[in-house]
């Protein structure tokens, strides 16, 4: 198992290197240039030239790439031209926000999706089952923006139960943030009001972001449980007279979790793309919003740095999924 993990981690090196080359070329293939984007209307050939020299964009590509790589290895991704701050500093501010949002959304999706799928399967063919199937279809097809505005309208504007946008109230501005994860920060510093503020701000964006993964997880769980309930080994377990609880946990859910755990791993990509829309809709200062804005402003440094880190996270999460798969299923266990 340890060798498997180390091998997979080593594999990360060529993957990230290849990706860095592709990314580097891709951002430069975008029409227009950072200088133009910065100057907009006021662009004159001289001014553009000045800025290009300042940013090192006048050098040949391989020189530019080499500089980028050299710095990246020291975890220096340059300066964002959107915010004029170091990219690494932006990462430190924004990754915690998105991770907090994504983890909350995934928790909602898993904690609701799996039980819903399970009970739908158990009541296969009844109206409850049909209701959950149609609800999940709605969940998958509903546009994220529409849902976001509906939720804001009802729960923030009309009922006033939850905050409209952002990560925290203005009055919380002087709260300490040692890690950047606001929920975690509030717990660590023992700040009750900050905790409830951070949590309340998470609810609507997280629910929005969770809908699609929740619907998918519920559907996959339902299908997997239906399959497993027909398996001979479940009949064997019944023939042993085991309690319904043991049969459900040990024999049904454990096997049904195999396809579900793969699905959960795949949700990560979906969460990242969903985060761009959700963060924009809720003015939630996270990775998604920042990266989305980096494209029109030709913020090369931000695009390169952020996408590399996202890719590394993606690989790591899939490694975690594979490990958990191995823990559940002895047949694929690596020795």
């Amino acid at each position, binding site marked *: 198992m340890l060798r498997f993990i180390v091998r997979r981690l080593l594999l990360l090196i060529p993957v990230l290197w290849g990706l860095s080359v592709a990314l580097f070329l891709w951002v430069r293939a975008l029409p227009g240039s950072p200088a133009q984007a910065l100057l907009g209307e006021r662009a004159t050939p001289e001014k553009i030239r000045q800025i290009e020299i300042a940013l090192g964009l006048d050098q040949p590509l391989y020189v530019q790439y080499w500089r980028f790589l050299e710095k990246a290895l020291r975890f220096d991704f340059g300066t964002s031209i959107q915010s004029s701050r170091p990219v690494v500093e932006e990462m430190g501010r924004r990754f915690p926000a998105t991770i907090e949002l994504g983890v909350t959304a995934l928790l909602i999706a898993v904690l609701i999706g799996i039980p819903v799928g399970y009970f739908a399967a158990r009541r296969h063919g009844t109206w409850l089952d049909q209701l959950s199937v149609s609800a999940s279809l709605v969940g998958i097809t509903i546009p994220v923006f529409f849902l976001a505005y509906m939720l804001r309208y009802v729960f923030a504007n009309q009922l006033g139960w939850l905050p409209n946008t952002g990560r925290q109230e203005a009055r919380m501005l002087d709260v300490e943030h040692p890690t950047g994860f606001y929920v975690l920060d509030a717990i660590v510093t023992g700040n009750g009001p900050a905790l409830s503020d951070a949590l309340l701000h998470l609810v609507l964006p997280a629910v929005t972001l969770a809908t699609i993964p929740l619907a998918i997880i519920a559907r996959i769980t339902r299908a997997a449980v239906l399959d497993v309930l027909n398996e001979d080994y479940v009949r*064997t377990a*019944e023939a042993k007279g085991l309690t319904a609880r043991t049969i459900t946990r040990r024999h049904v859910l454990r096997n049904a979790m195999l396809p579900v755990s793969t699905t959960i791993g795949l949700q990560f990509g979906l969460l990242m793309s969903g985060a761009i829309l959700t963060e924009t809709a809720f003015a939630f200062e996270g990775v998604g919003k920042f990266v989305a804005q980096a494209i029109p402003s030709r913020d090369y440094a931000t695009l390169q740095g952020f996408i590399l880190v996202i890719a590394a996270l993606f690989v790591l999460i899939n490694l975690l999924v594979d490990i958990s798969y191995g823990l559940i299923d002895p047949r694929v266990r690596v020795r």
Partner: protein
Amino acid sequence: MSLLDVRDLSIVFSRRGRRDVRAVDEVTFSVAAGETVGLVGESGCGKSVTSLAIMGLLPKRGAAVGGSIKFDGTELTSLPADKMRGLRGRDIAMVFQDPMTSLNPVIPIGLQVTEVLRRHRDMDAAAASKEAASLLERVGIPDPARRLKEYPHQLSGGMRQRALIAMALACKPRLLIADEPTTALDVTIQAQILELLKELVVDSGTALVMITHDLGVVAGMCDSVHVMYSGRIVERASRWELFEAPRHPYTAGLLASVPRLDQARGEKLEPIPGSPRDTIPWTQGCAFAPRCRNRIESCTQGAPELVADKLRPDHDLRCFNPIDVAEQEAVTL
């Protein structure tokens, strides 16, 4: 009083948009403590659903069970689900046909044995795993301590069936139902598993219902035999009687299609013509009529009843024109 008493059992499957399927009807038989009873018939005749009905394992929706199933005096068809769970695996156990799919692939063999012990025999983890090792040893699995930690995919088919037998026998049940326990195995392994069942079940006084389509299996171990056709019992007799002088044309057909040691080399086996699907509903006559050599006119005018054979005691028949005993003798000679 017998240990298991099945009376007038009927099982009807209904599904929306389809016609009801009467898979089993008028099935009556009993099993005395320690007795071994064979339930024989071709594929689809209702052997498995009968055994599932006894175990209370038929689907809750879409399967209607009629008649009565009494175990040691307790009516099982109306027993509450939790009481039935307490009985299953402890007093009545079952071994299924396919050992490749009957074990949970993601948990170790050991846990699959100990979970029965802990559920019904109130053992703690240590006692249960000791008992599990000795159970595996008894069913002939070498190196049981290691096997307990292994997963099903690490065991061969024969070993898996042994493990399943160990689980079934873990609580010393009074009745074991074996539903074609050897059909999915290689021929040499089949013989070993039958030998094991004989040794552990028959000789220990556990009653056994042996379900099979193979009369050869019945010949080696059963006290009495029930032959089923299209959901009903068509003949019942002691093993000796049935093999010496089958009276029902279907039984005779089954016997003629079993290879025998005393058969001259080159002599052809005679399979029953047609297939189990060439049947008529029992409400219109004898379901076997389309394939029967002894068919007479009355066979398709009404259903024969299961009645005691006029010629022999302890021999029941459902047939208008059974095979003549004298003729039988001529055939065997």
